[in-house]
């Protein structure tokens, strides 16, 4: 098909042609076209179907406020549902499909809903589908759900990348129409840092769509010169294709830049879109205005659109929706459209003006005091019926109808912080209200300055006022005072659309009112008015006006609606940026990672860390084989485990001991230099927060360890205590977690192994370096290191730390030196098995609800001193007689499984919540015990040793008989670790 509706002129590049496809058919357009303008140029008016009644629809607008012309753009994984044809930039090879129709946009089976529309009035579903009860979910809802939605997801991963970025400026100007350009010019020339953002790909706003003059020359020339001057200023950044999506607190704006949406595929390494966070000292909103439609019978047919949109299509894109066009207007602006179209050679069938005093024209017929009473043409307008001033009717043949009900300032961003717009009775429109977001002011049509000169002037003044600079001189331009009278709907219409996408008609609003849904919020929710993808940009005001009429009140008394971010819908991918896939969270690698990978370790995510979980060797086919071997070999000889992930906090200062005494519930003041002590930290509410060790390296120097998971929160807590509770204490803190590679060397041969690498001047014999000792030492011929004699495994064990960059080499050295002892590297699984065998609490036990008492450490809580949490740990509810106590459990039948998360029931009790005795926190197979074992919190557990209980897990369908035991399955006396 050729471009039958293409006119002369326009801002398109006719030298080049883009081939594109819509609903399987090939078309041609030009650079500078949108999909909508190119389709109109090709004589296509029908582009989509409405949500509820599946009415045939064409574009209503030429911009981002479009409710109707929604298509699925692109194919395959890049398919992008609900894309507005009116803003989609044409590119070579573009493909688009209409949506919400089957089998085709011209013949849509679901259009049967339209015939049944009487039964589908607002809120009908709340009143029916209730009987019989199961039918809602089994019958009715599936039918309704099948009809839901507009476009479809591809069901494939989005292949494009998105970036996030941050920009700062003195003045953010939102919208590059006359006021925005003038403001940018003023601020730019004054040397201020300026960002000028516009959602369009071309800067100029309405100037691109009008036949106007500025300063005696064409407005297009002025626009081009202005943009050129702005581009040359290093302090001005022009951001076309960028939508300011929201005004957030304190001058922070979200902006989405569509970097590659006008390309078939983004260039390699380049993002599809960028979400910018703009930090603006001041903001000038120059967002323009949106023309209002008029509600009349069948006002939704393809070919019926806003008059200003027609002007845009004709002037900017040289595309007319039809060659015979009528205009329905309540203000002078409709006549401007008629004049522009006429000038371009489009036949104006008539201008139907609601006003008796309508201006007349020599070029076309004007029907004053007339209204459109109906329209015809199922898939595209064929004629309109007009009720004339004298009450008679006539028809006007036309294939397109422009509606002009006046203009509404685009106040959306002024409301993002819940500010309310104010009513301007001269304009019969809402204008920005008093409480704007911090730093924001408004200029141009967004403020109600509807003339070109007014816009230029208010842009210049807006910039000057915001920045305290001189107001720039403004060129002359059109300055006709705006005349707009309110005209919202034609009386007596049966089906007159307000919200075209959601199919909300005047009648629905009347029904809502009749049923008591009279607040604006009730109206919106009951009828879905304004809830569609256009967020009611063209429909909310009409709904309000009708509510006002029904209530016999003025519009501002009925209320306003709040506009919420985003200004236009935003791709979820853009809001996520690069934080997806393997980049969702940063990955933390341990110092032995490279070595462990070489060694074939299986890794596991522990918070953001990746840790070696186990190290399979040849012949092992199941993880348990590896883990059992690692445990057995460690307990029999020696094993090495990377425990760098534990938090390490350097605590220094004269009051360091005093400080730790406050933090830990057990005493620390008298810990000797060269010694380590286990410590339990409580939250102020008396619940255990974290445990770890504190090593006293010097009188005024401790190294505190935390669990891997709590390193951050514990550090924050320590800073709170230091700065807010003990502000005069001489204590300094810094995290050193990643500075040191720290390895546990555990097992009866651990000392012998370490003696091979610890420099000989350091005696690490049991006498010189007993259990819970610590020291600064050197290894491998002089490398500074720290050595701690602590044990998580229950074996004789050490933890040795060296600067992280040497961690890899130290691990290799330990493995080499340990060959003679059959040294084994072990991972987090074996670590877990050995700690469960020893009954050490870990994250599963320190779950944020357990007390020292529950953990069997009640006696550790010092009564002699005040520490965080001690007072509240004494509350009755935390010290009841049958409080949970940490114990061990093992199956009576060794072959049976202990399920972590299983609950414990007394031998003969019913299995229900009322008889719940506790739960298993951790479970593992213990090579030493020869069966699975578990740690459990059981009511009065410490008094129930030997009791036979049932471990039930209905979720995993298991029930096992267990015996309550001590939590210390291995070496309960602790002889091994002291050896």
């Amino acid at each position, binding site marked *: 098909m050729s471009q039958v509706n293409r006119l002369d002129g326009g801002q398109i590049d006719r030298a080049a042609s883009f081939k594109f496809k819509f609903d399987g058919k090939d078309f041609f357009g030009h650079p500078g076209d949108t999909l909508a303008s190119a389709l109109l140029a090709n004589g296509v008016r029908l582009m989509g179907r409405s949500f509820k009644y599946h009415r045939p629809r064409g574009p209503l607008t030429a911009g981002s406020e479009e409710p109707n012309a929604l298509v699925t753009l692109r194919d395959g994984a890049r398919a992008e549902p609900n894309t507005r044809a009116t803003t989609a930039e044409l590119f070579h090879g573009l493909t688009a499909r209409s949506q919400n129709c089957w089998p085709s946009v011209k013949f849509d089976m679901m259009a049967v809903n339209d015939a049944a529309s009487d039964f589908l009035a607002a809120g009908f579903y709340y009143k029916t589908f209730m009987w019989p009860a199961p039918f809602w979910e089994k019958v009715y809802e599936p039918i309704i759900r099948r009809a839901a939605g507009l476009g479809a997801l591809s069901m494939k991963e989005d292949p494009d990348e998105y970036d996030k970025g941050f920009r700062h400026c003195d003045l953010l100007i939102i919208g590059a129409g006359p006021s925005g350009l003038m403001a940018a010019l003023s601020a730019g020339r004054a040397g201020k840092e300026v960002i000028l953002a516009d959602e369009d790909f071309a800067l100029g706003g309405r100037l691109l769509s009008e036949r106007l003059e500025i300063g005696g020359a064409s407005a297009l020339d002025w626009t081009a010169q202005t943009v050129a001057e702005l581009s040359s200023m290093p302090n001005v950044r022009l951001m076309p294709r960028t939508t300011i999506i929201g005004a957030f607190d304190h001058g922070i704006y979200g902006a989405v830049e569509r970097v590659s949406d006008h390309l078939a595929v983004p260039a390699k390494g380049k993002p599809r879109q960028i979400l910018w*966070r703009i930090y603006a000292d001041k903001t000038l909103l120059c967002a323009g205005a949106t023309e209002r439609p008029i509600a009349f019978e069948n006002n939704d047919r393809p070919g019926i659109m806003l008059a200003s949109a027609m002007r845009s299509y004709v002037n900017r894109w040289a595309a007319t929706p039809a060659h015979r066009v009528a205009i329905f207007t309540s203000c002078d602006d409709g006549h401007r459209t008629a004049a522009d179209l006429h000038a371009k050679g489009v036949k104006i069938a008539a201008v139907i003006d609601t006003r008796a005093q309508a201006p007349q024209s020599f070029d076309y017929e004007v029907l004053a005091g007339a209204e459109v009473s109906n329209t015809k043409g199922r898939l595209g307008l064929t004629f309109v019926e007009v009720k004339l001033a004298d009450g008679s009717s006539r028809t006007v043949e036309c294939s397109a109808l422009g509606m002009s009900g006046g203009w509404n300032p685009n106040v959306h961003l002024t409301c993002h912080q819940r500010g309310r717009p104010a009513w301007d009775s001269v304009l019969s429109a809402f204008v920005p209200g008093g409480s704007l977001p911090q730093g924001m002011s408004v200029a141009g049509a967004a403020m109600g300055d509807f003339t070109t000169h007014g816009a230029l002037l208010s842009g210049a003044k807006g910039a000057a006022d915001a920045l305290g600079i001189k107001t720039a001189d403004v060129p002359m331009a059109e300055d006709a005072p705006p005349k707009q009278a309110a005209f919202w709907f034609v009386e007596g219409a049966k089906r007159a659309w307000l919200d075209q996408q959601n199919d909300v008609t005047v009648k629905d609003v009347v029904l809502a009112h009749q049923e008591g849904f009279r607040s604006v919020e009730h109206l919106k929710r009951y009828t879905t008015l304004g809830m569609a993808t256009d967020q009611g940009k063209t429909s909310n005001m009409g709904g309000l006006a009708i509510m006002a009429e029904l209530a016999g009140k003025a519009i501002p008394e009925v209320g306003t609606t709040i506009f919420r971010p985003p200004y236009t819908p935003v791709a979820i991918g853009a809001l996520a940026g690069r934080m997806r896939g393997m980049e969702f969270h940063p990955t933390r690698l341990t110092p032995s990672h490279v070595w462990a990978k070489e060694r074939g370790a299986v890794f596991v995510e522990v918070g953001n860390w990746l840790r070696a979980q186990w190290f399979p060797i040849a012949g092992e086919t199941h993880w348990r084989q590896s883990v059992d071997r690692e445990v057995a070999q460690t307990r029999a000889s020696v094993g090495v485990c990377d425990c760098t992930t534990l938090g390490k906090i350097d605590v220094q200062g*004269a009051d360091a001991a005093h400080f730790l005494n406050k933090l830990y519930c057990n005493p620390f003041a008298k810990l000797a230099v060269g010694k380590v002590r286990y410590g339990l930290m409580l939250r102020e509410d008396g619940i255990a927060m974290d445990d770890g060790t504190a090593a006293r390296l010097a009188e005024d120097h401790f190294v505190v360890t935390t669990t891997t998971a709590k390193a951050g929160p514990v550090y924050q807590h320590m800073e709170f205590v230091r700065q807010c509770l003990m502000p005069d204490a001489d204590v300094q803190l810094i995290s050193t977690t*990643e500075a040191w590679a720290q390895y546990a060397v555990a097992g009866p041969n651990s000392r012998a192994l370490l003696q091979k690498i610890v420099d000989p001047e350091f005696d690490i014999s049991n006498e010189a370096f007993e259990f819970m000792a610590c020291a600064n030492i050197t290894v*491998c011929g002089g490398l500074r290191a720290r050595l701690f004699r602590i044990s998580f495994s229950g074996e004789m064990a050490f933890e040795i730390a060296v600067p992280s960059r040497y961690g890899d080499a130290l691990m290799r050295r330990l493995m080499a030196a340990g060959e003679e002892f059959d040294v084994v590297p072990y991972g987090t699984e074996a670590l877990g098995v050995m700690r469960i065998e020893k009954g050490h609490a870990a994250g599963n036990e320190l779950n944020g609800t357990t007390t020292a008492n529950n953990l069997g450490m009640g006696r550790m809580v010092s009564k002699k001193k005040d520490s965080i949490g001690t007072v509240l740990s004494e509350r009755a509810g935390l010290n009841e007689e049958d409080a949970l106590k940490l114990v061990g459990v093992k199956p009576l039948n060794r072959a049976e499984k202990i399920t972590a998360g299983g609950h414990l029931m007394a031998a003969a009790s019913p299995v229900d919540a009322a008889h719940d005795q506790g739960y298993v926190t951790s479970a593992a197979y213990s090579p030493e015990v020869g069966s699975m074992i578990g740690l459990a919190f059981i009511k009065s557990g410490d008094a129930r040793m030997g009791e036979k209980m049932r471990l039930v897990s209905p979720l995993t369908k298991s029930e096992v008989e267990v015996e309550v035991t001590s939590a210390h399955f291995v070496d309960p006396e602790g002889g091994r670790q002291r050896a």
Partner: protein
Amino acid sequence: MHDLIAITALGGLEPRVDTVAGTILSENPGLALASVHARMGHEDACRAHLADLLDGQVPEVGRTVLRDPEAAFWTGPDQWMVGAPFDTHEDLAAELKARFGDTASVSEQTDAWACFDLRGPGMAAVIELLCPINIRQMQTGDAQRTSIHHLGCFVLRRDPSDWVRILGPRASATSLHHAVLSAMRSAL
């Protein structure tokens, strides 16, 4: 002298260098770091020692003192990070402790951080895609802590001003490197 071989934060034996459109990202393992935190009541003495070390200058809030061999930047109230060439000052913390004595708490920080130098005409555009720092206003000698892809980092603007140094958590060096390199490919 010990015989253990160091690896870089990215896990290699040699530092990594990447170039995109003339802007260069290089891993820098040659930096020894130690934090110096004044003891309560010894703030003035601590500053005096610091000034003594840094040719009479003490980095004020948000600033660095850039000089050789030792340099420093402000990290918090009465707290600084001191840096020096690793080859000559590997045990920087011990050197500083000897100098500062009881006037400051000193902690070795060398391997807490991975260090990347980003340098070239596209530096500012890359930084804009990484963190909220106002790079157009940032002066040579400014130091800011910021967040890059959820990683707490220091960004120092060096001399010449097309050069920033990024210190990020060492264990996440791979993620940080990936983030910066992706931003370079995107912006440049």
